[in-house]
């Protein structure tokens, strides 16, 4: 069949493409444009200002703080979530008793809404009466003011993020583990390899494609999972736990500066483009887009 114009195919694609263009591609272009314009108010006509908004960005200490926070947020959540997900999958796939219950416990956070459960976590973190402080108190340790102290606010958010996503990533490892051949393990055991050696030499390398896939998703989450900020810290104290997407929200809807918010969004888009680039460079395309 020759490749040519195919009206039917385009008609079938029309609803999807028009929706995607209207709410993904077009707003992306509009964001780029808005980031180089400015207006005194929402009703005043906007004018081209070149890179002035970006100059503002460079001079904005909150922006740099947010970027740094986002970096630590990724460093703190991505490897830990992946490691826990692998451990969970190995346990649930192994010979442990009450496998079903355990799998259920690990997976449940995936279907619970972040925002609603954040209320429960808020209680866990509350100074003095909260669960964490009560547990620490029972062994004679005075817990910190988890969410109120700039040193512990961001790590407290990370803990909830890891709790939310590890069980979700476990699923992908579980699926991958079930495709590995048991003969491989029998052979390794015959050779006298211990559990750690088997994991390092066989399981982990064979799980590599899954790890790459999970890595991309974990990195995306590090930028888009900000729901719990609304309940736990609101980015505080003094922006110590503020993240890029939350700062975009604040700038656009609390400070009502859509031009600066657009400039921040461009930074977010650059970050996402970099993640996409990592994905393209690392993935074997044959596996995924055939």
């Amino acid at each position: 069949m020759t490749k040519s114009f195919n009206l039917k195919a385009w008609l079938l694609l029309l609803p999807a493409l028009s929706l995607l263009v209207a709410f993904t591609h077009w707003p992306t272009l509009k964001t780029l444009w808005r980031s180089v314009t400015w207006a005194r108010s929402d009703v005043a006509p906007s004018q081209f200002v070149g890179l002035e908004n970006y100059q503002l960005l460079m001079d904005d200490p909150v922006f740099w703080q947010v970027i740094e926070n986002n970096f630590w947020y990724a460093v703190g959540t991505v490897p830990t979530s992946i490691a826990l997900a692998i451990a969970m999958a190995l346990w649930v796939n192994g010979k442990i008793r009450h496998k079903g219950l355990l799998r259920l416990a690990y997976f449940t956070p995936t279907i619970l809404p972040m925002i609603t459960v954040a209320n429960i976590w808020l209680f866990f973190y509350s100074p003095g009466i909260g669960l964490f402080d009560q547990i620490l108190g029972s062994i004679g340790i005075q817990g910190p003011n988890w969410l109120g102290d700039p040193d512990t606010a961001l790590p407290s958010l990370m803990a909830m993020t890891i709790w939310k996503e590890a069980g979700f990533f476990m699923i992908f490892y579980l699926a991958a583990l079930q495709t590995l051949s048991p003969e491989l393990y029998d052979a390794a055991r015959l050779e006298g390899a211990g559990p750690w050696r088997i994991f390092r030499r066989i399981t982990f390398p064979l799980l590599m494609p899954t790890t790459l896939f999970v890595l991309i998703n974990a990195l995306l989450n590090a930028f888009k999972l900000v729901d719990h900020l609304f309940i736990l810290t609101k980015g505080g104290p003094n922006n110590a736990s503020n993240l890029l997407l939350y700062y975009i929200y604040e700038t656009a809807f609390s400070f009502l500066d859509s031009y600066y918010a657009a400039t921040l969004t461009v930074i977010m888009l650059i970050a996402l483009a970099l993640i996409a680039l990592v994905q393209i460079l690392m993935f074997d395309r044959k596996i995924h887009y055939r």
Partner: protein
Amino acid sequence: MSNWFQRLSTFSAYLLGVIWIMPLLYAFWAAFHPPEYATQFSLFAPLTLENFVAAWDQAPFYRYMLNTIIITSLILASQLFVCTLAGYALAREKFLGRGIAFALVLTQLMVMPEVLIVENYKTLADLGQIDTHLGVGLPYLASAFGIFLLRQTFKTVPQELEDAARVEGLSGLSLIWKVFVPMAFPTYLAYSLVSISYHWNNFLWPLVVTNTEDSRPLTVGMAIFGAPESGVDWSIISAGTLIAIGPLLALFLVFQRQFIQSFMQAGIK
């Protein structure tokens, strides 16, 4: 040494399981006991349903839940329809520009609507859809993930089957509806469960586009309900939380196996 390692490993597995289920267990504890037991644990704490009554009185849960159900179903219905057509075109039609069309679709996997809240809000304002169910749904009515999943599935339908159906006189939409849709049933189920749990729990975009009870979903309602300013206590918040997550949690517990299978299947593709 190996035995010792084994025990430590098993212990960690259960410990992690307990930690992971802790927030939910606590919510049940606090919701079913009087407020004075919210911060202390006693085997003899009396059971009560008062907190549920109080929570139900303090926030329009019924309205929130209705909004969530309307928004989630609206999105799912549209996604299933739109993604089927696009997935079929990308999987089975040969045409100039297919690569570009597919690349355009995949962009949304990376640039999620949440990222573009600033411009999408302005678009919605221009369309006069702020604070409507449709407004909450619009950016999600087409899903790159759904199109991708269905494309992968439709690709596996044997050509002979399609040819046979064409000999029978089927073509166009009826071919898709009678041959491809039934073949992809597990994919539809998997995708639907993933989509429902995503949109039942979605928060940032609904927060931005809703202003009143008329369209506000449970997640946004709960954020307002639980805010410290509104001065609700932990027991009532826990009861409210259980009301909000109840339907999805029940659905999940009943169809646990399907849920986990679905997420697995959606992930492998």
